[in-house]
């Protein structure tokens, strides 16, 4: 008795359901081994029925200042990554097929080695008698070894190294989508190549910049291995405090509260970056 339109809509719904069914195994897996445990952990923070755990975190100056430090480290890492990654992405997007293949391969290479191994490698390189210090001394550039390890410098080097590809790829992808005729047209209309870049290419790549920044910032905020190993206890990230609560004090509810705070801050920053660069995103859509 249904009209042809209704049966067509039913057909469309059936197709949607079929697609959903294909994605179901992955969704179930994610739900069972990721979403559910995370929710369980987060719910621990309000187990007592009140916000006592959050109160404890807010009143103890340590946690607030560590969170602030973590945000600062994440911001600095993001800024360094952006400054280093943009030129690389620009070069990749304009390199020929061979150049781009080699460049992308070089960028992907570190992904085949675990973060742990790469961080230990930095210990060897940056130590008092490490490769860097010895080379500098041999060349007579320094007298005493530079303190490169167990401080902020070491942490930044290690984190930028690990996170750089996460900045390069989104920017590279955004630059590839910019029609090469656009900067060309700008130059034909009287712009120098620098102005053509500033007025045309760069604004059109902002979507990639924002995606890269969001990715790197969020990943840095929760970074654990690299600051723990290269910071030598002098650079404390919020993730290290959470780990301490779980492993040493077995205070799961408090660790859950700190995790909740980290999650909320992360989501807020993610939303903020998205909002700030929404213009850019719309324009390349």
């Amino acid at each position: 008795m249904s009209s042809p339109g209704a049966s067509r809509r039913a057909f469309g719904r059936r197709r949607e359901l079929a697609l959903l069914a294909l994605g179901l195994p992955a969704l179930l897996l994610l739900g069972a081994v990721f979403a559910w445990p995370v929710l369980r952990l987060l719910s621990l923070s309000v187990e007592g029925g009140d916000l006592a755990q959050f109160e404890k975190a807010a009143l103890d100056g340590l946690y607030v200042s560590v969170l602030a430090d973590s945000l600062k480290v994440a911001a600095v890492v993001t800024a360094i990554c952006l400054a280093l990654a943009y030129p690389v992405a620009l070069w990749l997007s304009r390199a020929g097929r061979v150049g781009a293949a080699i460049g992308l391969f070089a960028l992907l290479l570190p992904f085949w080695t675990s973060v742990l191994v790469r961080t230990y490698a930095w210990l060897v390189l940056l130590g008092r008698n490490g490769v860097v210090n010895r080379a500098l001394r041999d060349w007579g550039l320094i007298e005493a070894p530079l303190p490169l390890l167990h401080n902020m410098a070491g942490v930044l080097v290690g984190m930028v190294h690990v996170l750089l590809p996460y900045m390069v790829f989104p920017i590279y992808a955004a630059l590839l989508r910019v029609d090469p005729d656009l900067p060309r047209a700008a130059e034909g209309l009287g712009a120098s190549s620098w102005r053509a870049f500033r007025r045309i290419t760069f604004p059109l790549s902002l979507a990639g910049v924002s995606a890269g920044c969001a990715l790197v910032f969020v990943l840095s905020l929760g970074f654990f291995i690299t600051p723990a190993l290269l910071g030598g206890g002098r650079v404390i990230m919020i993730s290290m405090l959470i780990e301490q609560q779980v492993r040493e004090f077995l205070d799961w509810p408090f660790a859950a509260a700190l995790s909740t705070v980290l999650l909320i801050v992360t989501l807020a920053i993610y939303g903020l970056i998205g909002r700030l660069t929404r213009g850019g995103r719309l324009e390349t859509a």
Partner: protein
Amino acid sequence: MELSIKGIVRRFGPVTALGGIDLDVAEGEFLTILGPSGSGKTTLLKTVAGFEIPDEGAVLLGGQDITLTPPRKRDVGMVFQNYALFPHMTVAGNVAFPLEMRGLKRDEIRRRVEEALRLVELDGFAGRLPRQLSGGQQQRVALARAVVFGPGLLLLDEPFGALDRKLREGLQLEVRRLQRRLRLTTLFITHDQEEALIMSDRIAVMDRGRIEQVGAPSDVYARPATRFVADFLGESNLLDGNLAGGAVRMDGFGPVPLPGQPPGPVTLLVRPEAIRLAGAAEAAPCRGRGRVVETIFLGLSAKLRVRMEDGPEVLARVPLRPSMPPPAGEGEWLAVGFSPEDAHVVPRG
């Protein structure tokens, strides 16, 4: 300004994209470069715009050698194939761009942007983004942006390719009117021969990196200099024959009188509209008989493919009216003829 292209050669590895191009465009002239894809016409345009540096030769604009001048200093407005509008800027922002680059004052920029948008009948669209416009409107924005700074030369790179037929015809005439009004020296690139015939003062036909012929549209159409031009521009019957004793002998037709030419093998061009069929052919001096292979209905006219008796296949185009049905159906025999004045001798080369 007048444009002068002298002996331009451009090679890409073993491929010669431009094999010595000489071309002059007079002040205020609309010259079309017509050629199939891969003929080198886009490379030539890029050379004039400054995006390509030629291996040999020179480009002169207004008497000045600009061969090595960077694009931004060339005083050339260009409309790209896909318009290349800046997607993150409004219509007004796009049109203002070349003026900003030239450091004009804000009031002056606003005045000239308004004027340019009025010129292309887009006043009221200043605040829109390019993606909020139709293809035809985008094309007009690109045009406004290319002429707003009063360039000495306008380059159009197949600007109508992406538009549907009806819109295209309207815009072609509009661009032509605008070009005449501004007296803009214009180099126009297309592979569409109809477009070239409609718009140009002169046409330069290009093939494989060389210019085959330059001339007024009617001239190039009626008297093509080479077989390629005859074939590429409009539809054609190219009939091979042998000239002896003041007449051409060829398969399928009676002898065609052709005085004052040296004897030897010749090729005759007869346009389909010059071919006469059935009753109309009886009076034609050069006649033969053929069988209709195919009839194609075109609305105002019909095209007939006719296989000549012991001869080549010819294409004829006859007008259609209710009182004038097609002269014969498929498979039927009929008389085919033309008059020698409608035949043009295509030089063999």
